[in-house]
């Protein structure tokens, strides 16, 4: 443990959160046995000539929440976006190394199918200028789903803990919702196509604490059916909500461990410095 003199409030709060969680009956050992969803080997990512990720190796276990933490610009969002090949939409990007989803190289897959299996929620809510219903149904419609949309829309909105609030106004514009509701709508939209993995890129950074708590709770409930990787700059959130945490710095993965272990006994001094609030 770092000396008490250097601990900032956030670090204290993180530890308190962990203490609460360790009282949870979930045995630490079960974390290790979870099968892997993503396997990333030796990832080097480039924006044109500039390298943003250096030799990253990471395993993302299935049905667990993995948090990616690190100071701004450390490459965590860039890395996350690689997992569903979203970086391809930016010109001049490329990478070396392998990213395997359930053992398959994601580059060999059809990118459309990949993105159905690996969904994404963005930092700022980005609902489409359509009704609430049409937003949730969008992914289903474009992927050719022809069954009963109503049921699936309802199910997705329930999974995103938004159903009760919008069930009577499904045909209203998505923009009529508050910021927190819009973000939950985006989560519902992403869940509608039943992804195996959900990538969340700082989903709560634009939201208030109450909404943030709601979203963390729904993440916990989604764990059973969905693997999640969440980028966050909020260490409390990482400590509270995730099973595994990966700490990145300057494009490199510094440390990756079960969350309680990373926060209570960080192996690397840089990890310790970050989580005790000395920088970032």
């Amino acid at each position, binding site marked *: 443990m770092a000396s008490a003199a250097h601990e900032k409030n956030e670090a204290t709060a993180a530890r308190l959160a962990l203490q609460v969680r360790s009282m949870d009956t979930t045995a630490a050992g079960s974390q290790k046995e979870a099968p892997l969803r993503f396997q990333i*080997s*030796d990832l*080097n990512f480039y924006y044109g000539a500039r390298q943003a990720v250096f030799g990253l190796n990471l395993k993302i276990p299935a049905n667990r929440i993995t948090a990616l933490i690190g100071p701004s610009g450390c490459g965590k969002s860039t890395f996350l976006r690689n997992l569903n090949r979203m970086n*391809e939409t930016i010109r001049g990007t*490329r*990478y*070396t*190394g*392998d990213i*395997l989803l359930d053992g398959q*190289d994601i*580059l060999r897959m*059809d*990118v*459309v199918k990949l993105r159905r299996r690996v969904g994404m929620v963005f930092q700022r809510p980005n609902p489409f200028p359509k009704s609430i219903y049409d937003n949730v149904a969008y992914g289903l419609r474009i992927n050719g789903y022809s069954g009963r949309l109503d049921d699936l829309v309802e199910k997705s909105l329930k999974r995103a803990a938004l159903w009760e609030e919008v069930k009577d106004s499904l045909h209203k514009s998505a923009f009529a919702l508050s910021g927190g509701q819009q973000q939950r709508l985006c989560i519902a939209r992403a869940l509608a196509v039943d992804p195996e993995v959900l990538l969340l890129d700082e989903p709560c950074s634009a939201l208030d604490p109450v909404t943030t708590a709601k979203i963390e709770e729904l993440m916990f409930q989604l764990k059973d059916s969905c693997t999640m990787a969440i980028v966050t700059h909020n260490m409390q959130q990482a400590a509270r909500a995730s099973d595994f945490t990966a700490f990145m710095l300057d494009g490199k993965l510094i440390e990756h461990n079960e969350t309680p272990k990373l926060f209570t006994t960080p192996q690397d001094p840089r990890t310790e410095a970050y989580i005790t609030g000395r920088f970032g």
Partner: protein
Amino acid sequence: MSTATTPIEHAAPPETGPRALLHRLRHGDEVAHVVTLTFAALILLITSLLVFELWIRSGPTRGKFGLSFFWSGVWDPIGGDFGAIPFIYGTLVTALLALMISVPLGVAAAIFLAELAPRKMSDTIAFLIDLLAAIPSVIYGLLGIFVVVPLMRTTIGPALKGAFGFLPIFKGPNYGVGFLTASIVLTIMVVPFIISVSREVLLTVPREQREAALGLGATRWEATWKVVVPWARTGIMGSVFLALARALGETMAVTMVIGNDPKIRESLFAPGYTIAAVIANEFNEATSDLHRSALIELGLVLFLITFILNGLARLLMVATERGGGHS
């Protein structure tokens, strides 16, 4: 599938080979790209075709007269002798005269709208002036015939003659139609463009410039005229070029009030002709292929002039955006 020694680079999916088809499984994207590209290319095709057609169909006169077309003042459809000078003269005179009146008027109005008027008033007035720009040419022409021409004949003409009648440009009989009338109508048509663009450019001048001048004790006018307007100089020049291009190509309103006389005359009260006007008047009744070819060649000239002017205007606009007004 991990790499051992040399890393395999994963860029965007492979461009060629059988894998390419798999990766371009989204045929829709390729189709969409090609389709939209085709339509974009269609614009290039249309424009090239336009130049081509004008060039080809003006062949007869180009062959017969060559460059002498441009310094001959004769326009004799019956005799088969054609020259462009009267029309170039008329086009230039009316356009330049229109600019001489509209630029000060337009810049002044733009200054008012950008510097003095409260935002809401400025926006409303700018909107109304934009409406003026949307009014069809033939409407201005109609007003020209029934309002400006009589006005010229009864009021403006005599007034000018009374005050400046000794000047050659104001000599000669005044029938109401002619260079001056056409210029006045053109002025009204062209002013909205100058105001609209100049206002926008003036609004982008950084506040600090204004404040620096005022801070040094300049009056509002001095700050505006000596600091703000020079800063926006390039953009305003751009608007002038745009207005000029518009004035040169203006057809209907001018045709209806210029008097249709293919001669070069000193007096502004005299009837004249512009390129656009003669084409509008004579094209359908062209008496021979040569006649028609001459008209088309005039059209080609007009096209070239407006092409160059618009090109210059765009350059100036780009320069304004980049250099922030300094030139």
